[in-house]
């Protein structure tokens, strides 16, 4: 019941014209960013972050999270109409969404995608509303060893559960941790890895890196591909919307299943992309006629979109409650929190009630408004794709440069952003994932601090990470996840031997 009162309080924080206007602006920008080729959730949020520097934290996070919801909605438009997934998690939407558009049922597919996205995130927001406060209050009892164990768990689950080659995930993560360590050491005040450079004294700014890694590199990658487009135009009428909504209850099992998959994988770090595929595959496997999937079944749109949005939203749960982002975009939002002078972690729920509950309330409101907005304005946004890329590419470059400069008013950062653009381009092409790098950069110094504080507390005894039941369980779980590929292989071998 307390959560309900706090939520109402959150809504009261939102009910000012200024915040509602920012919400609309954020959603529109977000859909725009989601539709444009070469942009997407993390890029959009990273590029538009500087707009929020002069706002108060609550307005800033409401606008940024609305950009995020908008981008999630926008990704579905290009997947269905043009067969171009804006983001990795929209890939599964193209399987049945594009065939539907080819059959002239684009409006139906879009309505299905938007509505199921809405349902997915609603389930995840409900989870956040009722679970996040209890997790946060539980985490208030954490000391440095517990926090380090949780950070370790996050890092290890990226390595163990990620689909990329393990050594590449480790390279990405260790690279990020090193970059995070450059500059002044927070514990001793000593300088390290600066090589006498005054510019590096401040350290490598996380957001500068993100803008280069995601924004600039994506432009370079997009230029490589052929930019000619073929697709369908669509207009959604009220009749189609009502028809899809009437059909929807029949698929409640799929919707519910995908929501749960999404929530679960969204909370697990590194799981967000897998969610939509898993939602789609399970719906297909458990269906009475799996062959009809891929030919334009509406269920094939419901399943991945629900899961994708549930996971995208649920990724914010560990960010709010523990200060640990569940996805790349959540990591960038977390970077934003620090810029606005907030300290992410369980204390947020105590010290910045209006911020946390304003954000949670904005998730409800933002999704409702977003749903209405996309349903009514699809033709407008689809026509954005007609703008030639030669006009969009330099505009994105300029926006990236503005963003990188504005963070610390330093020209050096713009050069740094370019360097990260090249790094991101090469990393993506040789299969080194970028999400672990982002995560390591944003968590790096806090992970190191908690490690050193634990070591100081225990006088250098590593057994502090097994000193009580809680920290011992988390540390052990982290190690199990790290070696999970080896463990599962060993289990398989043992099982085969017994069966043979």
């Amino acid at each position, binding site marked *: 019941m307390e959560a309900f009162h706090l939520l109402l309080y959150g809504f009261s924080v939102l009910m000012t014209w200024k915040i509602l206007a920012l919400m609309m602006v954020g959603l529109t920008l977000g859909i725009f960013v989601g539709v444009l080729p070469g942009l997407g959730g993390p890029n959009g949020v990273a590029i538009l972050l500087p707009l929020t520097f002069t706002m108060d934290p609550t307005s800033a996070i409401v606008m940024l999270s609305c950009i995020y919801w908008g981008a999630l909605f926008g990704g579905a438009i290009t997947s269905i109409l043009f067969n171009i997934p804006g983001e990795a998690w929209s890939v599964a939407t193209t399987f049945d969404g594009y065939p539907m558009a080819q059959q002239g049922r684009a409006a139906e597919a879009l309505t299905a995608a938007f509505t199921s996205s809405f349902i997915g995130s609603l389930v995840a927001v409900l989870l956040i509303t009722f679970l996040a406060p209890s997790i946060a209050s539980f985490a208030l009892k954490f000391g440095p060893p517990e926090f380090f164990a949780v950070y370790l768990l996050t890092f290890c689950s990226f390595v163990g559960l990620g689909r990329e080659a393990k050594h590449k995930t480790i*390279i990405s993560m260790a690279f990020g941790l090193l970059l995070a360590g450059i500059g002044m050491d927070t514990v001793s005040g000593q300088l390290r*890895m600066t090589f006498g450079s005054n510019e590096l004294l401040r350290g490598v700014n996380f957001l500068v890196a993100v803008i280069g890694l995601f924004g600039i590199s994506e432009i370079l990658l997009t230029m490589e591909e*052929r930019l000619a487009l073929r697709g369908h135009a669509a*207009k959604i009428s009220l009749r189609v919307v009502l028809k899809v909504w009437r059909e929807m209850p029949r698929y409640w099992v799929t919707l519910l299943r995908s929501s749960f998959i999404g929530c679960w994988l969204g909370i697990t770090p590194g799981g967000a992309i897998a969610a939509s595929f898993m939602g789609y595959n399970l719906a297909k496997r458990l269906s009475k006629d799996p062959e009809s999937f891929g030919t334009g079944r509406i269920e094939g749109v419901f399943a991945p979109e629900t899961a994708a949005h549930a996971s995208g939203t649920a990724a914010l749960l560990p960010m709010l409650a523990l200060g640990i982002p569940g996805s790349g975009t959540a990591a960038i939002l977390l970077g934003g929190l620090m810029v606005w002078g907030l300290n992410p972690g369980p204390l947020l729920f105590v010290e910045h009630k209006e911020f946390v509950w304003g954000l949670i309330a904005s998730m409800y409101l933002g999704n409702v408004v977003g749903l209405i907005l996309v349903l009514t304005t699809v033709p407008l946004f689809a026509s954005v794709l007609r703008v030639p890329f030669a006009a969009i590419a330099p505009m994105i470059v300029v926006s990236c*440069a*503005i963003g990188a400069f504005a963070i610390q008013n330093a*020209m050096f950062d713009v050069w740094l952003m370019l360097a990260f653009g090249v790094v991101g381009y*090469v990393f993506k092409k040789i299969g080194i994932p970028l999400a672990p790098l982002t995560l390591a950069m944003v968590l790096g110094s806090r992970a190191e601090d908690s490690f050193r504080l634990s070591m100081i507390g225990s006088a250098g005894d590593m057994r502090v990470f097994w000193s009580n039941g809680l920290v011992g369980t988390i540390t052990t779980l982290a190690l199990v996840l790290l070696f999970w590929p080896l463990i599962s292989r060993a289990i398989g071998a043992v099982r085969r031997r017994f069966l043979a």
Partner: protein
Amino acid sequence: MSAQGVEVVVGDPGDPPDDSPAVASQRSVETSALAVILAFSLLMAWDNWRTGIAWESTGPAAGYFPFYVAAILAAACIFGLVQELRKSGAPARGFVSRNQFKRVLQVFVPTLLFVPVTQWLGLYVASFLLIAGFMIVVGRIKAWKSILTGYIFSAIMFGIFEVAFDVIMPKGPLERLFGY
């Protein structure tokens, strides 16, 4: 197509053909990238070792944590390099074709030039030049359309950042002329 299925077609004047030869093989790029990261990790490890990786009275020294991270990074790179070198028989996949690479440079070189021009003429003039120039040269879009787009975009950015949100950008002689 049904009544709603109007086709949207967007052309691309510089579409890269498929048969363009590769500039470098995937393997050579991957190997050299790993080698560069390995060198970076060794440099970082050395610097942290110099800072101090031992235990002091106040706990681990400043270089302790990053030193071991650098060591892990180096180990992962060596693992990757060994794996790449052992894959001797595998067919070489192209990293990027010549045409693709040309297009990547078409964006990258102007972007690279954009930064010093920003320092010299200010961000808003530089972005006007970048957008209009890129649209005319690379996009082969009509000059008046390109110049108008560049002008409108720079003006909107100026309005948003300089006027509405008070985010200060590097400015040059032109802005000074108008008293900013």
